[in-house]
């Protein structure tokens, strides 16, 4: 159980970040790790369908965008309690998943990749052309809203712990989900869909439900991202973001509960580290990705699991 141990250690460290940041007088740690946690939530959502369902979505950033814009548009229009904004973000993202799911899930494999990418690009252009809400430049959120009427979100530490709680909840949710009846069906679909159908499972509706669930959770991540950065723009749903989410999931270890957490942190830390070396760090990251694909499947979760097994 090396992976579980590593995950709890990381969660404990994340919980201590506000204290460490205060101690070292480095308030921007909150921003960095707050954002990392949001991406971890998004990666968890992608892992549900990619890691457990075998559905390669190259359009998951779209849901981040929907969640973010839901928060942005509502707060510009004066609706600024997050208990209204979040359900709207989650609902809108889930609805988009439902509508596009009918098209993308009728096809399989390679089609799925290309069509999810295309739909995400459609939303990218939609938000780019929405002049009313900032168009190209994006939308600044005038002020962070309230939580059930309380103005707690203005405190960076409170916001940080709120995101932490959502992250912990998302981890718990996915841990339960994948062992449930639904999770078994989903994993069965990934392993051998033909067999699942012969056993009597109408696989389409289970895959659709998983896709909607995943989109909704990712929409929640988007809402949190907008709240953290007090901004949402087309850049959050640029196609490369969807690619990065896949990288996070695979780096961390697909189809493992804690993999997305490891992957999101590792990817963002790698970015900071390489970014300090050179601003052209993608020149290094690209070949690193190729090497990971060719030689290091299993990701960090697999690595931790192997380390844990060693006496």
């Amino acid at each position: 159980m090396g992976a579980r141990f590593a995950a709890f250690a990381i969660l404990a460290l994340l919980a201590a970040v506000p204290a460490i940041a205060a101690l070292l007088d480095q308030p921007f740690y909150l921003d960095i790790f707050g954002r990392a946690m949001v991406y971890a939530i998004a990666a968890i959502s992608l892992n549900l369908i990619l890691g457990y369902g075998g559905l390669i979505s190259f359009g998951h950033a779209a849901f981040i965008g929907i969640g973010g814009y839901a928060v942005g548009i509502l707060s510009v229009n004066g609706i600024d309690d997050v208990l209204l904004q979040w359900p709207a973000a989650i609902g809108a993202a889930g609805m988009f998943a439902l509508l596009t799911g009918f098209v993308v899930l009728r096809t399989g494999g390679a089609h799925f990749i290309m069509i999810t990418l295309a739909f995400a690009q459609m939303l990218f252009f939609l938000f780019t052309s929405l002049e009313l809400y900032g168009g190209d430049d994006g939308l600044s959120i005038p002020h962070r809203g309230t939580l059930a009427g309380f103005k707690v979100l203005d405190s960076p530490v409170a916001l940080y712990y709120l995101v932490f709680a959502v992250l912990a909840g998302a981890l718990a949710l996915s841990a339960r989900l994948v062992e449930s009846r639904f999770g078994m069906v989903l994993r069965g679909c990934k392993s051998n869909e033909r067999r699942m159908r012969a056993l009597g499972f109408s696989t389409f509706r289970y895959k659709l439900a998983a896709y909607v669930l995943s989109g909704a959770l990712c929409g929640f991540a988007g809402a949190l991202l907008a709240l953290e950065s007090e901004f949402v723009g087309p850049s959050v749903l640029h196609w490369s973001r969807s690619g990065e989410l896949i990288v996070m999931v695979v780096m961390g270890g697909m189809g493992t509960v804690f993999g997305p957490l490891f992957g999101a942190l590792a990817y963002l830390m790698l970015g900071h580290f390489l970014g300090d070396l050179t601003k052209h760090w993608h020149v290094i990251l690209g070949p690193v990705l190729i090497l990971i694909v060719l030689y290091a499947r299993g990701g960090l979760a697999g690595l931790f699991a192997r380390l844990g097994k060693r006496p």
Partner: protein
Amino acid sequence: MTLLTVEGLSKRFGGVVACDQVALEVRPGELHAVIGPNGAGKTTLLNLLSGELLSDEGRIALDGREIGALDAPARAALGIGRSFQITSVFGEFTAHENVALAVQARAGHSFRFFAEARRERALADGARDMLERMGLGERANTPAAALSHGEQRQLEIAMALAARPRLLLLDEPTAGMGPSESARMVEFLASLKGTIAMLLVEHDMDAVFALADRITVMTYGRVIATGSPDAIRANDEVRAAYLGTDS
């Protein structure tokens, strides 16, 4: 009285007629074998019956109900189970999880998101019983991919049975098995006779003639004879087309 009635069933792939006006009946509890040389359309027939392929024409009725337009999951829900010619198990699941998933298919809906499936008594007990019956009890916690070929074939049957079908379609259950494994499988299928209707596609003629209540012979997509094993043995057309070279 018949359980499965097939009339005038046809399927073409481009110019090739894989099934040509096939008619067939399976009675409750009987083991009905379908034999024929390679390319006779036997697997296509199974795929048409299980709903994996839709026929171009003809009708299929299960217990008097038309099922020709239903998809595979719907037919499975009505009680048609099948095994595959190429072993088709969930490799990363344990043997027990494979069978439990099959039990789950017929035990209510699966939109349950939180309760751990492995703690559901009904699923776990059903799976364990089925594994015991198949003689796989000791391998319950082994990942299916790590089972031997023969064990995987057994698991395949266990999964099909665990969904409690009324009609079991078996596509060469002894394919690739050694003689002793093969004999065990034949023995097991014999023990099922009377409790469940089976449509068996099989190349092992000894197994077929030992097991079948009735036999249908196909060549080039057509049925050329149906009857008891003795009648089929004695049928000149069958001998000419098929058995002459084989036995």
